[in-house]
């Protein structure tokens, strides 16, 4: 019991430390990459280099990933304030989201598939 909660505590601390480092680095370097992304890259670097054992991160990271959708709900409910704007812009939104996605789907998958199959021969 104590060991399990300690594992959660340590892994959460690791994630928050990386976030803190990422946010500070962003302010310090004055770049437009979000601090959370920099934090993620720091954590990935620590894991990939073996400096940080994966067991120290796994419990907390899994918790975040399992309940991630919950975290989007409050901001997404903010949609209720923007309904008019969405309705007024329904055509640009649909054209951009669906048209753009279709273009990328075809323009990326097709050459990729042909190149990879050629390489296998």
């Amino acid at each position, binding site marked *: 019991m104590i060991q399990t909660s300690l594992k959660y505590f340590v892994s959460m601390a690791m994630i928050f430390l990386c976030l803190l480092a990422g946010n500070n680095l962003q302010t310090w370097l004055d770049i437009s990459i979000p601090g959370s992304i920099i934090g993620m890259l720091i954590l990935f670097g620590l894991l990939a280099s073996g400096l940080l054992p*994966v067991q120290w991160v796994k419990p907390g990271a899994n918790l975040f*990933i399992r309940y991630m959708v919950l*975290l989007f*709900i409050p901001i997404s409910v903010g949609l209720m304030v923007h309904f008019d704007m969405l309705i007024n812009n329904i*055509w640009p939104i649909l054209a951009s*989201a669906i048209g753009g996605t279709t273009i990328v789907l075809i323009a990326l998958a097709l050459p990729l598939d042909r190149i990879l199959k050629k390489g296998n021969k």
Partner: protein
Amino acid sequence: MWLLVTIVVFFIARWTARKLNSPFANPLLISIGIIIPILVILKVPYETYEQQNQWVNYLLQPAVVALAYPLYEQLPQIRSNWRVIMLACGIGSIMSMLTAGIIAALMGADAPLIAALMGKSVTTPIAMEVASHLGGEPAIAAIMVLLVGVFGAIMAYPVYNLLNITHPIAKGLTMGNISHALGTATCAERDQRDAAFSSLALVVCGVITSILAPSLFSFVLWFAN
């Protein structure tokens, strides 16, 4: 009190989505479909609801950091295929942002809306960060992410069949590029190899998108004028 509502609705929505098992039955969509009518009927302003749910918003940032773990789990795949992964995700991310931004701009969307559309192809927490960085509304970004996610999850495999696209790396990387986690879930039902590359692409594209979004956003605005 509204925090409790959020949590309870989340569990109901997740349970319902699992029961229905369709790409349209998305837990986020069901959750906001329950909460917004409740707030409207009880005449509760969004600000009240948001204030009581503030700590949930604070957790979005560490959630992005936690994505390092699934990325680390794909390390063997990254090591042996890093060239094609970086190439596909780089080109894919740039194409996604440019097509979305330029189409929206040509059809008369204003800058905040274009900002919300730029990150539509990446996973929700990153898309929200990108949108608010560019001066867009994170709530709208989340809905755009959902829209393309559902669209890609439904359309990708029929298109693959039509064009005879069969290589798992091509199928997976493209799916992760266009439809992030929702697409990855669809891949997981078809083929585990597709899903591995899809989950990889969703994180790599998220990073590339967040890095390139500000410059491509300026380019789109310049192009539109």
